């Protein structure tokens, strides 16, 4: 399988986005829209596909512009590109998919601040050619869509007894309404992560809640990066901390030694003085 991936970079990118580095389930990115619009499977699917569209085009555009954008202003430039695309998607959904537009509401313009998009721009598209970047966007977008649809399916099934709007559970089973309301989103994602933990699938969740993700994905060095980079950043942090500690210890030691030397010198001087005095007295 690994050989196959090496041979075909496009398939490798798709696999990477969908499974290996699934943005929501593994990297824990884009949690805001994932929690907010997974009220039903079709909402999740709609949001996922809108984001995928933005992600593919923004990756292509940013990849094409990567040699033109100066390094200092790259983040504002990326934001402008993404915001323009999001506005286009917003106008298109408003015109052709009014029901979806009404259901997603404010979360469509908020695709701009979705960590995944700026993260992919920064971590991948600004360093690679447009063809692989497009497939990277497609893979990541489909991974996002998959996670949202999965969560939407679970919430819709338990909360309303339907799947994609079709009644599945018999009428006699009372749906648990809270699952389509706000608390259900937290619950379902907690359950998904519990299952992943129990199965031993490695996710970035510990890093998110323990090391403190700041929500500033665009400039965060460890967000949206590969698991390898995450590990590297962590090692780097640890190494720097250790170095700082070693330096502090060394400094303390040096200071102590200097103090001791000073004390010794003082004592010697005092002794010498005393001896001199003694000699003088003797004389």
């Amino acid at each position, binding site marked *: 399988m690994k050989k196959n991936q090496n041979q075909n970079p496009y398939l490798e990118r798709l696999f990477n986005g969908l499974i290996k580095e699934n943005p929501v389930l593994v990297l*824990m990115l884009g*949690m*805001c*829209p994932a*929690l*907010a619009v997974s009220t039903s499977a079709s909402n999740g699917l709609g949001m996922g596909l809108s984001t995928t569209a933005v992600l593919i085009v923004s990756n292509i555009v940013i990849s094409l512009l990567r040699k033109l954008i100066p390094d200092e202003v790259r983040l*504002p430039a990326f*934001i*402008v590109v993404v*915001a*323009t695309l*999001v*506005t286009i998607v*917003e*106008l298109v959904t408003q015109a052709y998919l009014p029901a979806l537009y009404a259901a997603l*509401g*404010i979360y469509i*313009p*908020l695709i*701009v*601040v*979705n*960590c995944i998009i*700026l993260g992919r721009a920064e971590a991948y598209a600004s360093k690679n050619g447009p063809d692989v970047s497009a497939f990277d966007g497609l893979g990541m977008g489909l991974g996002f869509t998959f996670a949202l649809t999965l969560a939407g399916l679970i919430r819709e099934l338990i909360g309303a007894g339907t799947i994609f709007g079709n009644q599945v559970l018999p009428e006699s089973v009372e749906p648990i309404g*809270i699952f389509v*309301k*706000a*608390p*259900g*989103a*937290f*619950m379902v*994602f*907690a*359950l998904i*992560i*519990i*299952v992943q*933990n*129990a199965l031993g699938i490695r*996710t970035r*969740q*510990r890093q*998110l*809640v*323990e090391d*403190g*993700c*700041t*929500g*500033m*994905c*665009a*400039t965060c060095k460890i967000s949206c990066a590969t698991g390898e980079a995450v590990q590297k950043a962590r090692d780097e942090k640890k190494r720097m901390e250790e170095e700082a500690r070693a330096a502090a210890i060394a400094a303390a030691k040096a200071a102590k030694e200097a103090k001791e030397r000073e004390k010794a010198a003082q004592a010697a001087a005092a002794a010498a003085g005393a001896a001199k005095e003694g000699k003088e007295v003797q004389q």
Partner: protein
Amino acid sequence: MNNSLLSILIQNMLINNVVLIQFLGICSFLGVSKQMKPSASLGGAVIFVITIASAVASLLYDFVLKPLGLDYMKTIVFILVIAALVQVVEMFLKKTSPAVYKALGIYLPLITTNCAVLGVALTNVQNEYNFIESIVAGFGTALGYTIAIVLLAGIRSRINEADLPKPLRGAPIVLICAALMSIAFMGFAGLS
């Protein structure tokens, strides 16, 4: 519900709590809530930035975008204005009041891409709030964010000492706490 300022404040702070009901700013809500003090500082910085950002966004929308018929440009304009605004606020604080800067400084840049800021600006426009109402709504939203993150930090400091089953440790238990808090906040819907 009438649009008095108090009702806008309550509406944005409790009934439509920005984190627990609207799911904006989840990253920092989960990421920074490990301890009480950073949570409170972040809350302070968020109050500061969201209030100013909603004032500026409201002025821009009412006096520039709307008269020119450019309201479809609001997403692009707002995100750029917010990013620039945070930079300006940071520089201004650094020069004028180093004490405040020291307390909030490191959290200011974090807020630039916090979706809550853009979310508030867009919601204000959607609800057709005027200038004063936008400021009150922004302040209320940010206050709601602060309440939520400080409460979660308090709960998490207790959970740290609990003996949890292994798969629950880390994110799941935090999400479950958030779910329970969200259920509690749903009770405020009775106020509207």
